């Protein structure tokens, strides 16, 4: 049994040492919001945060993660779909089939934590996820809109 901190809770899970985090999340922890798209860290559908950093979980061995490290999946981004990225995504109706969107949302939220007002170049560099439906234009708008929502929110907090 190994201890993992997932979405703020420490859970004990049993898995083979070479199992990628993606499959531990999906098959042991029951968190299927994180998707399998390629298995070789190309498409980004499996993106989660480890200690705030975006990670492609399909190639990240779960056994390499320490119990103190904080894993956040799309299910744990907010309790009520209220994260600025989720709000912006809803406002702009970003998803089409939606299968890549967990990864898009996790990549976007990690970017905004690092760069609160990203430029298009920042977005190009950080958001390398694949979307076959072709939501890229709305994803770009969504990141900018989420940055606005986040800025308004933090102003509200400081006021």
């Amino acid at each position, binding site marked *: 049994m190994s201890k993992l901190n997932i979405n703020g809770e420490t859970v004990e899970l049993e898995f*083979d040492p070479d*199992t*990628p985090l993606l*499959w531990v999340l*999906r*098959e*042991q922890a*029951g*968190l*299927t*919001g*994180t*998707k*399998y*798209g*390629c*298995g*070789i860290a*190309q*498409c980004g*559908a499996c993106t989660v945060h480890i200690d705030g950093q975006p990670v492609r979980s399909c190639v990240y061995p779960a056994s390499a993660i320490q119990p103190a490290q904080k894993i956040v*999946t*799309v*299910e744990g*981004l*907010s309790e009520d*779909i209220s994260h600025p990225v*989720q*709000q912006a*995504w*809803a*406002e702009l*109706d*970003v*998803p*089409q*089939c*939606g*299968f*890549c*969107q*967990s990864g898009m*949302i996790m990549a976007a939220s990690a970017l905004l934590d690092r760069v609160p007002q990203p430029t298009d170049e920042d*977005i*190009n*560099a950080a*958001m*390398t*996820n*694949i*979307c*076959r*439906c*072709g*939501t*890229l*234009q*709305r*994803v*770009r708008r969504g990141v900018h809109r989420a940055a606005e929502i986040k800025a308004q929110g933090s102003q509200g907090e400081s006021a």
Partner: protein
Amino acid sequence: MNTSTTMSLSRRKFLVASGATGAGLAIGVYPSGKAVADNHLDEVNAWVVINPDESVVIRIARSEMGQGTLTGLAQMVAEELECDWDNVGWEYPTPRENLARDRVWKNYATGGSRGIRESHQYVREGGAAARMMLIEAAAARWSAAPEDCSVSKGVISHKASGKTLTYGQVAADAAKLAPPLEVKLKDPSEWTVIGQPKMRLDTVSKLDGSQLYGSDINLPGMLNAAIKAVPVFGGKLKSFDADAANKMPGVKGVVQVGNNAVAVVADTWWRANKALKAVDIEWDLGDGARLNQAEIVERLDEGLTADTKLVGNQAGDVKAGLEGASKVVEATYSYPFLNHACMEPMNATAKWTEDFCEVWCPTQNGEAAHAGAAEAAGLPLEKVEVYKQLLGGGFGRRGAPDYVAQAVLIAKQFPGTPIKLLWSREEDMLQGFFHPITKARVVGGLNDDGDLESLHLRISGQSILAGILPQALQNGVDFATFQALLPEGDHSISYSVPNLLVDHAMRNTHIRPGFWRGVNVNPNAIYMECFIDEAAHAAGKDPLAFRRGLMQDNPLGWAVLSAAAERAGWADREANGKHMGLAVCHAFGSYVAACAEVSVNDSGAIKIDRIVAATDPGYCVNPQQTEAQVEGSFVYGLSALLYGECTVTDGKIDQENFDTFPSMRMAHMPEVETIVMPSGGFWGGVGEPTIAVAAPAVLNAIFAATGKRLRDVPIKHSDIDLA
């Protein structure tokens, strides 16, 4: 915007939580196999269920794969129903129930951009009939005449008495009434829901991971399967040694699937897929294994000038016309095999017993999945149930039930145990239904005034219908090959050329072809639109003006083309130092055009900066979703143009994952401006047509920017680099 979004978000969440939407229904809430709608005996009619809490459940027969049809179809029912849109949820009736009810929901197939344009009439009639029954039920309570009652947002009013009743209050009564014999639909000028940019009904669950796709299914006692089929089409399984795999942790069995595949069944998919690599498999690769890409291309080259009787469009005398032309222009183009590469790999979950088989799967055609599952199960259709899941992409791939049949064949070897089959990405890339490979030789004749008077467009290459639907050939002709080049119909040619010949030298391969979003319009629009651009330059004419001369009989095509050109600033492009290219076509019933703008940096690399795209789908049900489809079309279409291709070595597809089959990422995404300009009077599709104009508009813009004609897709093999 903020407030209304928040409100509708919470409302949607409520509808999801209260089970008023179908998202939860089809995933095993009724594991007995009981059909969804059996639980709604109080349905007003087949299309509409209204609950006492006023939630409205609209039944959707077509599949949602991202294209927005689900929301569009619900808008069409809601328009006539006159319910409160904020109360609308949805569910999928199962194909088995459709069968039991004399196909009351008609066709389930979702492809060819037909979801809305093929069902607009009967789904609106369904909504209108339900409205009439609800009003009749209220009128009966008041002992009033239905015509003295009116309805708005689900509240029925009796004019004389001022009394009101809600849909939720009378739905049970309405369910007992006979359906009206005649229904009258609203005039389009009266629409208040159709034509509005309503938010999608399926967005919220896609934001927090709660949306379950087929690959997320988890049933009690379920096992997971990974599969490997023979990597060359036409090959067979000879033998396999599973000793090593059987000893690996979690493995429950290694089984043969049909005559060409091996599956490992384990407690988790990760373990199943790992053990699959340890199975020693011997294949009979078959005749296809002798074929390589170079030989396929040779066959196509031979077809470019070979004799053929397969004619798609003909006028005048093209031979005489070309012989008498003042100037002859000739060009040869090519378009490769392509995999659909849906983000969600193929998957299906099946539970088989001698008496009944249940299947949970993403499919573009519930009835085809039902039939495929029944055949594999060895059971009659009545004893097989298919619960459709939302698709993680479809693009034409999920119209075929091959993966559904595989899941059933595996489950049959584990009676009573649910088996979830998930393909690896590698399996998905190899076992596709590929966009057919074609080449085209186009020869045009100009007269002294530089007008195009003669045109011979020869397509050489693979036929989709010959490969997977031979019964659809007409006297050996695959008319789908000629999409957007036909004399009339939903895929008519854009131009009037006095001497015209469009023909096809069918050159098939063992590679399994399929309908790939946009289908044959993708190559055909390149062949026609890039050639027209070449001919315009040969004639010394502006490409827009040159086209206008050929579009006198195509006012709707000209309208979208000129709208795109005007918004893009075509007339002033040279003065502004902009490099632009045009393309137009009529496909899937809609008129679409694009004007692409390309720039060249100091090192000669090009960047696609901007696309203006115009679409006339006749009637537009949801403009913001139409925009989303148009924007997405450039990602799919330009991914193919820039880097997509599948090639063949020893009969096998070379590209097995996104590292060798790249898809467009953010850095290459141009800014897309969409003009939705519905002219009314017809229903056209929006999921596919724009893909076809993406590539030729960009290729023509690249010529404007660099003077180079790129005629082979993908352009990654050219000497042009992308910035």
